[in-house]
């Protein structure tokens, strides 16, 4: 039922020719006005978008950049004898990078990303393949069920999970304790992975849905041909489905890398139950504390710029690596 190229209308129709001749006839008189109007049109149409984009996106970034190069100096006990602000050069960046806790927070989320992102991507790929396999039962129900955690806000998800982590409240800890196993979900060595568990729980279904969408776009003929050739379901997954969902996998991985660097709510909420989480546990938490608990907006701006740069570099490197592999 697909239309062949032969059935398409001829490339140059009667209308086309008329427009072309018309244009050439008028060219001598009003070409300037026309082309200027034509050049202006997209800008006028874009203006509402550009205005908002500039106001809410470009301008704040510029302000943050300027702020990150500004230094406020106070004199007296509280700055009551004068406050001056001036150009700081890279002082704020040096202070941010010289802060061992901030560097540790970056190292922490990198470790988190190296473990959590692959686990989540593998998990969501498996779920997507299972749901899209011919023998899946009630795929619609399970798709919705797996996606549901994404509908739970990160803060609520963390509160829900914290009841399963806190000693004295958690049934897991009680059951394991009765078997002689001591579980400590919130200790300094484990709490990062407890957060990873919450994040995986929240986002696997969402990423699965992206992959399912891409799986659904695979033409039926490919499956038919493979089956005619006697390919097993495993062979179909390996040789047809996986190669064709690569773009979705790349996309979800890049989103996950950026998401990892922006980790905030889970750590912030779990802090009340886990003494091991400090005020600079993740880079974003660090920038938040610096800005709004320590009132050092300038250093916080420098930290924010560094986080954005790190996300940019990591995403870029990952895209480069995957492009090279596919070409």
């Amino acid at each position: 039922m697909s239309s062949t190229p032969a059935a398409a209308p001829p490339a140059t129709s009667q209308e086309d020719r008329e427009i072309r001749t018309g244009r050439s006839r008028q060219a001598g008189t009003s070409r300037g006005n026309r082309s200027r109007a034509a050049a202006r049109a997209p800008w006028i149409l874009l203006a509402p978008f550009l205005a908002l984009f500039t106001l809410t996106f470009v301008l704040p970034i510029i302000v943050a950049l300027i702020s990150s190069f500004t230094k406020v100096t106070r004199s007296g006990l509280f700055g009551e004898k004068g406050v001056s602000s001036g150009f700081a050069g890279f002082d704020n960046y040096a202070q941010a990078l010289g802060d061992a806790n901030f560097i540790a927070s970056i190292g922490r989320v990198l470790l988190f990303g190296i473990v959590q992102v692959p686990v989540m991507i593998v998990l969501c790929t498996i779920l997507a393949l299972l749901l899209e396999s011919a023998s899946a039962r009630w795929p619609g129900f399970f798709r919705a069920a797996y996606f549901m955690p994404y509908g739970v806000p990160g803060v609520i998800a963390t509160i829900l999970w914290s009841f399963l982590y806190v000693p004295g409240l958690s049934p897991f800890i009680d059951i394991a304790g009765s078997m002689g196993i001591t579980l400590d979900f919130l200790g300094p060595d484990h709490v990062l992975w407890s957060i990873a568990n919450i994040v995986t729980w929240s986002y696997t279904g969402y990423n699965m849905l992206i992959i399912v969408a891409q799986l659904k776009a695979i033409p039926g003929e490919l499956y038919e041909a493979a089956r005619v050739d006697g390919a097993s379901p495993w062979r179909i997954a390996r040789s047809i489905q996986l190669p064709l969902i690569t773009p979705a996998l790349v996309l979800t991985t890049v989103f996950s890398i950026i998401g990892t660097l922006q980790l905030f709510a889970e750590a912030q909420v779990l802090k009340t139950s886990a003494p091991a989480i400090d005020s600079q546990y993740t880079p974003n938490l660090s920038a938040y504390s610096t800005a709004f608990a320590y009132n050092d907006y300038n250093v916080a701006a420098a930290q924010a710029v560094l986080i954005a740069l790190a996300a940019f570099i990591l995403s870029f490197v990952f895209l480069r690596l995957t492009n090279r592999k596919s070409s």
Partner: protein
Amino acid sequence: MPHVSRRRLLSTGLGAMSLAALGACATPGTHSVNADPAIPAASGQKVRLTYWAWLKDFQKVADLWNAKNPDVQVDIVWIPGGNSGGYQKMYSALAAGAGPDLAQIELRSIPEFMLVNGLVDLNRYGAEEFAHLYDPTLWGQVSFTGGLYGIPQDSGPMATFYQPALLDKVGATPPKTWDDWASTGKELRKAGSYIDCFAISDASPFAAFAAQAGATWFRPEEDGWVINMTDDATMNVARFFDKAIDDDVVQTDFAHYSPAWFAAAAKGGIATITTASWGDALVEGVSGGKGKWKAAPMPVWGNTGFGSSYLGGSTTAVLAGSKHPREALEFAVWLTTSHEGIDAMIKNSGIGWSPAKDFVGTSRQQPSEFFSGQNYFKDVFVPASREQNPKWSWWPITQQTFNILSDGFRKKAGGTSLVDAVAAAEQDVITVFRNKGLTIRKEQA
């Protein structure tokens, strides 16, 4: 004359506007409201004040004032408590040049708000005439360089809440000294309980214990701040808790009033808690705890230091954006010194210790059913409120100092002692002061 097209004009205008917008985005908090001329009291016109606070049912308290003062109406807006989001909200509002007239700010956070020029000096609006109504120690904690930056609203004299049944099991009474506390703690461990928590994630109890032992970490002088976090008193306290943690006498896995603490306290895993007077409302939240708790004076450091200390406590401060500072001040004084205001705050909001010199609140003169029929306000907290270190002063980076300290405390599991953590923290704090351009020097021994 060069021809200026409409578009050129438009783009130049837009450019200038965005530049002006950028110019307006100077680093927040660099303009002092206390250098501007004082705002005269409103005469004859109706005034609406907004008060951001995290006390519950606070509007009911304000409504008592509103009924009597038709010209000055106060609206309460609830915010999250202190550093759990309330301050962040206030700082953003101040940075944006907005915000309420009044805000609840903890005593320890007053200097931090001064650093961003967020507070009105109330002495410029006649606060001195009310000084005699307040506990002088608290009045001292909000006075800096001749100015007054908040009206004390409640405070937190410290004592120990304990479960008599658990102490009886090991034949102990509430510890009178910290040495008693340590030996009772050892006995309690054998009975499967901890005597208390030591919060590695919150340094404020540690600071309170150091203040009790006689430490004064910061002193504002004419030529800048003087820091002394490594005096004998503080080092003794650090050494004491180093040993307590090494001997497994205290619980360090969770902090006071966390979900795990409530679970442990309900199951008898925690026998005592040395905390502020406002802790009573929280202890009353321990499930099935009615009649199982009592209060006693907190342990003392041998023959040195003070009988009690302070933890928390807050003020009613007037924020820089207020258009009616004098009216705001009058409301704050009514709230914190009138019998009507104090009783209403206790009844509706369960505030901490009253800052008024001679009134603790009507309901606090009666025995408490939850605390085993004990009249613990009169017996324990009234004396405690008179035995606090009067020299302690808060400083402009209190929260950051506490975070630096607790970052050090967290390393205790890895072998870094509290003593080392405090010494390292002092150096870091000096660096933070200097990075802000403030003058600070180490106390000469």
